[in-house]
């Protein structure tokens, strides 16, 4: 077929322009004293909330470090790349940070699917990466460059089940979980432990962003449970609590760290009173580090930080501590050996005093942490059980 020659010309010109722009855009002048921390996460789209909060946590840590001068001549810079919550775009983000922005370490990604997509990339490029929030099982296995400092589902769930059976005297569990990697992982762990210690009478699932739970709750009601474990986030949990009460399913509500956000109480009001949930972070913890973080975050962003921000802050702090401990110098940044040193340091993290709890990393890069158990009482979260020391 004959295409108009002019059209072909136009097309070729367009492509050429694009290529030129790309190459020019890639040429940024190298800052000599700067150690670049890359961040990968959803900054736009339906899951933007989580990425934005994580970024805020990292930025606060970096600002503090730069202001205090604890890293001597080195200045930290955060370069963030958006994934829109899509793992295939996350792969692009990771590659761009490594290849074009030439970062020295990455804090990310946020969603488990994003980190999964990035895992082989960071392994091949030998880029130390620590995820503050990706909880998928075995994520860091066989990957010496991937770490995470978030509370694992298994740990918090086992703690919760123990508490529920022993302290709260519950015995007939119903599980309602969100059908994504977070919810599925929680459900699996909870079901396994609950079956060992007591009885699981009902298991139902729901899709992300569901608003109507009535029919699932009616199904659960038939099985006569004495509590419902919600394997999901606060938005849906609040509604589940409300609709359960309406449906005459007035039973104890249990949850994991996804519930521990002020918005749970905002949306749920009286319906969520008495809810117990595990958390890696308790904003009312009276230690100076926690209070300092909460104050700074509140001033900047007009809301109380949640675990996304807190764990991201800790991840950045782990990186900062590593830079100090490993004695990373400006020469290291220049000749690119900083990354290897940082990797060593992160891997050796032991008893790091994070605001989201004492954290150690094991040989697989998994976090060893303990959880709080919080309770909603009088319209706010209070401490029900402190983490047990290792």
């Amino acid at each position, binding site marked *: 077929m004959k295409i*108009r020659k002019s059209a072909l010309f136009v097309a070729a010109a367009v492509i050429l322009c694009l290529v030129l722009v790309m190459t020019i855009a890639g040429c940024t002048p190298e800052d000599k004293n700067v150690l670049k921390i890359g961040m990968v996460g959803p900054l736009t789209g339906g899951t933007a909330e989580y990425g934005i909060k994580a970024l805020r946590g990292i930025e606060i840590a970096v600002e503090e470090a730069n202001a205090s001068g604890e890293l001597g001549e080195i200045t930290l810079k955060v370069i963030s790349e958006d994934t829109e919550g899509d793992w295939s775009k996350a792969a692009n983000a990771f590659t761009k940070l490594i290849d074009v922005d030439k970062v020295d370490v990455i804090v990310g990604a946020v969603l488990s699917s994003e980190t999964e997509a990035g895992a082989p990339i960071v392994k091949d490029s030998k880029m130390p990466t620590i995820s503050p929030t990706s909880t998928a099982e075995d994520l860091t296995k066989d990957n010496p460059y991937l770490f995470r400092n978030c509370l694992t589902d298994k740990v918090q769930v086992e703690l919760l089940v123990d508490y529920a059976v022993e302290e709260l005297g519950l015995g007939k569990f119903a599980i309602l979980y969100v059908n994504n990697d977070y919810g*599925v992982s929680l459900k699996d762990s909870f079901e396994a432990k609950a079956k060992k210690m007591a009885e699981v009478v009902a298991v139902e699932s729901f899709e992300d962003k569901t608003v109507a739970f009535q029919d699932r709750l009616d199904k659960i009601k038939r099985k006569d449970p004495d509590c419902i474990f919600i394997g999901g986030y606060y938005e849906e949990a609040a509604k589940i609590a409300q609709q359960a009460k309406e449906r005459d399913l007035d039973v104890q509500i249990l949850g994991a760290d996804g519930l521990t956000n002020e918005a749970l109480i905002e949306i749920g009001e009286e319906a969520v009173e008495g809810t117990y949930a595990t958390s890696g972070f308790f904003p009312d913890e009276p230690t100076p580090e926690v209070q300092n973080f909460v104050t700074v975050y509140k001033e900047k962003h007009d809301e109380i930080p949640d675990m996304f921000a807190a764990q991201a802050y800790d991840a950045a702090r782990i990186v900062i501590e590593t830079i100090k401990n490993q004695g990373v110098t400006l020469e290291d940044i220049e000749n690119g050996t900083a990354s290897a040193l940082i990797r060593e340091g992160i891997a050796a993290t032991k008893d790091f005093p994070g605001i989201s709890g004492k954290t150690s990393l094991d040989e697989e890069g998994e976090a060893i942490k303990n959880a709080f158990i919080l309770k909603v009482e009088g319209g706010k979260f209070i401490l029900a059980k402190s983490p047990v020391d290792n």
Partner: protein
Amino acid sequence: MIGPYYLQLLILIGINTIMATSLNLILGYTGQLSIGHAAFMSLGAYGSALVTLHFGFPFLPSLLCGALLAALFGVIIGLPTLRLKGDYLAIATLGLGEIVRIVFLNLEITGGAVGLRGIPKKTTLLWVVLAVLFTVFILNRIIRSRIGRAFIAIREDETAADSMGINSTYYKTLCFGVGAFFAGLGGGLLAHYMRYLHPNSFGFMRSIEHLCMVVLGGLGNMWGAFIGATILTVTPELLRTVADLRLLIYGAVLVLMMRVRPQGLLGQPLRNGIPLLGRFFQQARPKL
């Protein structure tokens, strides 16, 4: 040598070109409003990945298996929806695309909500280039043959084509099967490049992206599909700095393009100076 980031971009351009040209066959040449194309991609992706992981097939046979699985579904989907025209077909393909996504999200073998990890990396730029050339070559041959002419006839006026003895049922099914085959090929290449799969990337938005690539370049225009794929793969990367405005711009551009240049950047192909896309893309309703 090209840096890994640009290499990745080129590979993605290649894969998207395969997606756009295969959709072009269904949409541009045969006039079937299919907006569930990403489902074929995911079938090919998961199909080839699972074959690699569970049976240890080498690369090419894996790709082939994925593509054949997609083609099979193309035929399965094509047959019953054949009676549907225009908007109804669009909705049906949309629905089917969502069903595929939801099923994959819940099946254990595909990894469900956690996704499928550990796929070995086998796709290289060379493979992608070869695949693109293969796709374009085969599709071009088909279009220039009797089959291609039948497709165009169906697109222009299905009833007339039927009365001329062209078995529209057969040809429509064929176009879905072939289009799905190549979409599956693209999916398989993606799977062995990303090394991880999750169903949420193969939903409605991805199908819309493919649709826009075809329309942007120009329906029924092979080069157009390539241009469209390139522009829509590269531009989001370029616009990273204004990431939160990106989708906004995307939507506005779609609306504006349809107003200003609905035939796409490259317009309609001509043969001997006569536009090849007759009634289909011109007027919807003849004036009184």
